[in-house]
């Protein structure tokens, strides 16, 4: 173990020396408050006593051990780990945006509200819907909002018995989870041999207790459902409403309006499609967009524009029959500012190019990799491609091993074993922000891994070999989780 590796394994608590100080607190500029009664205060609270330089080095070193979109190609399927342009951050950090407080009165934050109003408008235009709410803080929360709106509308029409929610087996895993959380009974609809929703199976489920259907488009197979208009028609004829999971909008941006296809409600992941930070990099945003039928139920608040001709004012309002608030205030504003910047920087032609290049890049990888990796469908993919490592598995290298081996070649691993309907699935999403040179290097690495599988499978089986931490024992971590630091290594 090198000195550097040893160093990052020592936690701040283990670096603590009594009496060392890491910060000098400023003189209070507010009146001192009395502490609560002594009996309510803890005496056993361990706090690390570490000087500032050591804290800075500790966290800087940790950050340098990270794989991130700023350091590596990150083809993690279905997550759209595209590059996040720095100009987005510059705008979000403007003092007039970064320094405001969620509880300031509307008249003091007209600029911020105007930005939100414009984001609402842009998302409505992009999706072909009638209205939007920026309140949901993540994609799955957007999903939940969407189907709660569907539920409330059914209830208000005296059709609260509609409790069956259909979800194709190629959907995002969060879809059935959200439906179950909202109290729906989830029925899975199989995928046909082309990767489309099985229409015959769908028609059998179009019964009077149908609430609706949640569809990820393109699906997590990276395929556009060619029967989607018919799917929406079948659901509508049975009295249901159709929800679109917009997580894969990077494939359709500027090409297809979901509203035109027949969808009634959808969410967008600003942290995927609109290049705001993702994963550990920042909070998310999952705005929902709706057709007029669901507009009164939007989660609160939404921004309303009043007046015209340069005398507009902006107010936060509560839609008439809202499903309620889903967050303490009004969405993650800093994320909205970044998405606004992204949309304005690219413009409509630029946004169209995003999806064109995203689909082109994925198909380039498909064509170059399909000789060595099994592609289980005979058609074009959209913005991501699902390959199977089942040919490699025969040589002893599972999808997991291939994914870990990619880390040694300097690439983030793709999503593994999802979607569940493809054996040894490797879900690869290059995004539009990667150059042909980067994609070629990735193809070379994938081909090398296939070659190694035949010649020296132990290379992949023991991978990664070059990362600060080697192969983690995921099974043991799940079986015997070690969740809390204890003094003396307990």
């Amino acid at each position, binding site marked *: 173990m090198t000195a550097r590796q040893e160093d990052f394994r020592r936690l701040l608590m283990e670096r603590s020396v009594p009496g060392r100080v890491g910060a000098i607190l400023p003189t209070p500029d507010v009146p001192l408050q009395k502490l609560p009664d002594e009996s309510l205060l803890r005496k056993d609270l361990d706090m690390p006593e570490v000087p500032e330089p050591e804290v800075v080095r500790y966290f800087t070193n940790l950050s340098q051990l990270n794989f991130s979109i700023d350091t590596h190609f990150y083809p993690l399927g279905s997550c759209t780990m595209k590059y996040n342009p720095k100009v987005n951050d510059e705008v979000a950090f403007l003092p007039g945006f970064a320094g405001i407080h969620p509880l300031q009165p509307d008249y003091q934050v007209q600029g911020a509200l105007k930005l939100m109003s414009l984001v609402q408008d842009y998302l409505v235009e992009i999706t072909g819907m009638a209205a939007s709410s920026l309140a949901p803080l993540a994609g799955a929360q957007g999903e939940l909002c969407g189907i709660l709106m569907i539920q409330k509308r059914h209830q208000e029409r005296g059709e609260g018995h509609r409790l069956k929610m259909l979800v194709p087996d190629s959907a995002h895993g969060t879809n059935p989870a959200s439906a179950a959380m909202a109290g729906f009974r989830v029925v899975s609809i199989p995928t046909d041999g082309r990767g489309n929703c099985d229409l015959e199976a769908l028609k059998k489920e179009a019964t009077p207790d149908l609430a609706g259907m949640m569809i990820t488009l393109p699906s997590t197979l990276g395929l556009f459902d060619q029967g989607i208009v018919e799917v929406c028609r079948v659901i509508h004829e049975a009295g249901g409403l159709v929800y679109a999971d917009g997580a894969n909008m990077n494939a359709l941006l500027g090409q297809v309006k979901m509203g035109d296809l027949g969808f009634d409600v959808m969410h967008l992941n600003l942290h995927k499609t609109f290049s705001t930070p993702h994963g550990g990099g920042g909070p998310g945003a999952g705005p929902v967009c709706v057709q007029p039928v669901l507009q009164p139920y939007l989660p609160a608040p939404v921004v309303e524009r009043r007046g015209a001709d340069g005398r507009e004012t902006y107010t936060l309002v509560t839609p008439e029959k809202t499903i309620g608030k889903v967050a303490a205030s009004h969405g993650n504003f800093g994320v909205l500012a970044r998405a606004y910047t992204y949309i304005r920087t690219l413009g409509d032609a630029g946004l169209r190019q995003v999806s064109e290049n995203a689909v082109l890049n994925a198909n380039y990888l498909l064509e170059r990799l399909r000789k060595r990796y099994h592609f289980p469908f005979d058609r074009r993919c959209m913005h991501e491609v699902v390959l199977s490592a089942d040919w490699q598995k025969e040589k002893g290298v599972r999808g*997991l091993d291939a994914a870990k081996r990619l880390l040694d070649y300097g690439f983030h691993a793709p999503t*593994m*074993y*999802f979607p*569940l309907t493809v*054996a040894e699935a490797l879900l690869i999403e290059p995004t539009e922000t990667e150059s042909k040179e980067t994609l070629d290097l990735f193809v070379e690495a994938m081909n090398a891994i296939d070659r190694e599988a035949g010649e020296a499978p132990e290379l992949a089986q023991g991978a990664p070999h070059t990362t600060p931490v080697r192969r983690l024992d*995921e*099974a043991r971590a*799940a*079986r015997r989780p070690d969740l809390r630091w204890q003094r003396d290594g307990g």
Partner: protein
Amino acid sequence: MNPTDRKYSKEHEWAKVEADGRVLVGITHYAQDQLGDIVFLDLPSPGDRVEQYKKLGEVESVKAVSDVFAPVSGQVVEVNPELAERPDLVNDDPLEKGWLARISSDTLEQDMDNLLTAEEYEAFLESEAH
């Protein structure tokens, strides 16, 4: 690899009739291999009623959470007490030490007739792999 002393379902469970007429059930080698390392099992309680081909419980592996189906109908007499602490037994020894439940079936003969023989199960695996 799939012993002939028991029968199999297309969902990759096995059922073995014991000397006292009760049925020991578990998942096959193929199933544990597909699931990967198993980390948790959610099994019924003794006394619960299960139906053939309906859900018996859930298996969580590092890859996914999957349903396990009952190969026979009846009342659960016992679930494998070792699995709470040692879910990996299902990976290491799915056919013996990694059994899931013991079921007292009231439709034993008919249920067992519905299942596949070892030979038929292997042919089924072959056809699945096309």
